[in-house]
């Protein structure tokens, strides 16, 4: 075990099965959501993960957070990781305050710890008197601010932020960046998943570019961002037919043939 790395991926693959077009064909296909990914993230590094839609970023985030298991390879994590996603566990009928308590409990905090973070959350979320209103009356911005604030106050070793800043106004996004910078200075490892190149460039030290389920590049922030931007430009310039061809090529590489297992085999294998 090497403790200078926060997260280590060794030949990690994640496989989903796809239903085939016609039902008679029993041979369903399997699909690499992630294929043979290797990297090591040092402790205290801020990594941005870039990639087009469907490249496996979200799969990556749930694997990093320990929610989903890898199918092949191995993931070594040193420390407690937390996925920051918005709107989870918020109950529409409950008030903001009750939601803070509920979400704290869902995350497995003790009663004492929940009390401790409550003030911080209230202050950070800036929801004022709405705290005592049911969440169903909140605007969508307020909801995400509340959800985000609870997560940020948790203080894990490794933070995984999945497109969370795309909601909320500029002011709140800046506040979140500031808070994350604070966490960064405390030596936390942060993994920042985003479509927004400027945000990634501003905030991250290194970047990782995933394309078609495979790790394309991992390294210095500017180099990777430039290459990614070039690729996006190149892709956008293609004619529609070429785009489709490019997509199909990528898709083809991720397919593996697979025999369909029935219900009982799934239980007992």
């Amino acid at each position, binding site marked *: 075990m090497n403790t200078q790395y926060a997260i280590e991926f060794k030949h990690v693959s994640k496989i*989903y099965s796809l239903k085939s077009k016609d039902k008679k064909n029993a041979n369903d296909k399997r699909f690499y959501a992630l294929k043979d990914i290797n990297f090591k993230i040092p402790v205290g590094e801020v990594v941005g993960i870039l990639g087009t839609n469907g490249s496996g970023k979200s799969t990556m985030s*749930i694997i990093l*957070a*320990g*929610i*989903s*298991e890898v199918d092949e390879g191995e993931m070594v994590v040193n420390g407690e*990781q*937390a*996925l920051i*996603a918005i709107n*989870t*566990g918020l*109950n*529409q*009928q*409950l008030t903001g305050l*009750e939601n803070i*308590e*509920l979400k704290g*409990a*869902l*995350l*497995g905090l*003790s*009663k004492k710890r929940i009390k401790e973070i409550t003030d911080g959350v209230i202050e950070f979320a800036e929801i004022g008197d709405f705290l005592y209103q*049911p969440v169903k009356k909140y605007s969508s911005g307020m909801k995400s601010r509340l959800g985000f604030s609870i997560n940020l106050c948790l203080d894990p070793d490794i933070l995984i932020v999945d497109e969370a800043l795309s909601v909320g106004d500029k002011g709140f996004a800046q506040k979140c960046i500031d808070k994350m910078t604070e966490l960064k200075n405390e030596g936390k490892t942060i993994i920042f998943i985003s479509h927004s190149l400027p945000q990634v460039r501003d905030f991250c030290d290194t970047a990782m570019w995933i394309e078609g389920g495979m790790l394309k590049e991992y390294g210095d922030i500017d180099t990777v961002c430039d290459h990614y931007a070039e690729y996006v430009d190149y892709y956008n310039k293609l004619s529609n037919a070429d785009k489709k061809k490019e997509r199909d090529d990528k898709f083809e590489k991720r397919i593996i043939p697979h025999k369909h297992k029935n*219900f009982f085999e*799934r*239980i007992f294998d």
Partner: protein
Amino acid sequence: MFKSMKYVLHENFTNLYRIYSISKYELLADMRDSKLGLFWNFANPVIQVLTYWFVFGVILEKKGVNGIPYIYWMLGGMVVWFFISPCITNGCNAIFSKVNVITKMKFPVSILPATVVAKELFNHCCLMLILFVLFILAGYYPNIYWLGLIYYLSCAAIFSISLSMTTSVLNMMARDTRKLVLACMRLLLYLTPILWNIPSKLPKMIKMILKANPIYYIVQGYRDCFFFHKGIWAYHNYMLVFWLITFVLFAFGSFMMYKFKHKFIDMI
């Protein structure tokens, strides 16, 4: 096998506060849902009881059992059915209804059946209080045997959790499970001797099968505590069968939980 049971038990006992909080806020949210809130938790069973009493007690003129008027005899058993029935139907949905939680954070999935049961436990305690008042007014005074209710209540809770372990995992693999369970509940109500007493003229074999029903053991136990006062040990044969069935269910349920603990997210 034992590894998975140990895992499930450990997860449940280290997360007691989590179970408590989840069920508490679920209950709160449920009450906020409707204007009358808690009222429906009582109105629903009362209306059902009145229906059964009207059909069986008044129209079919069912006689009381061993000198206990039919309405009280039925209430004594029915009250625990009002606990078990929602536990089984909601327990089946325990994991699926929390999909937005388990896909977004690391979460001990095996505590979910327990949260459902904990929530229903609160409703049950409220119903029991009303029933106590009713029985005292009718002249059935509390005595030492009523303490047996605590034992039978924990039997019901453990049985429901064990069953929900299995059904909730199966429900994640195929949503048909819930439909099947819902359809079977009505059947179960009439197959379990809750609304009727087992007639003595039935063949021995059928009687045995009816009495081996774990829910019957609990219903019978409740009635014994209220009216017959034979004590817990008087039913040691059924007790053995009950715990055997519960153990098998729990073992299978925790085996499934353990096996699929990280796979739920891919089953949605």
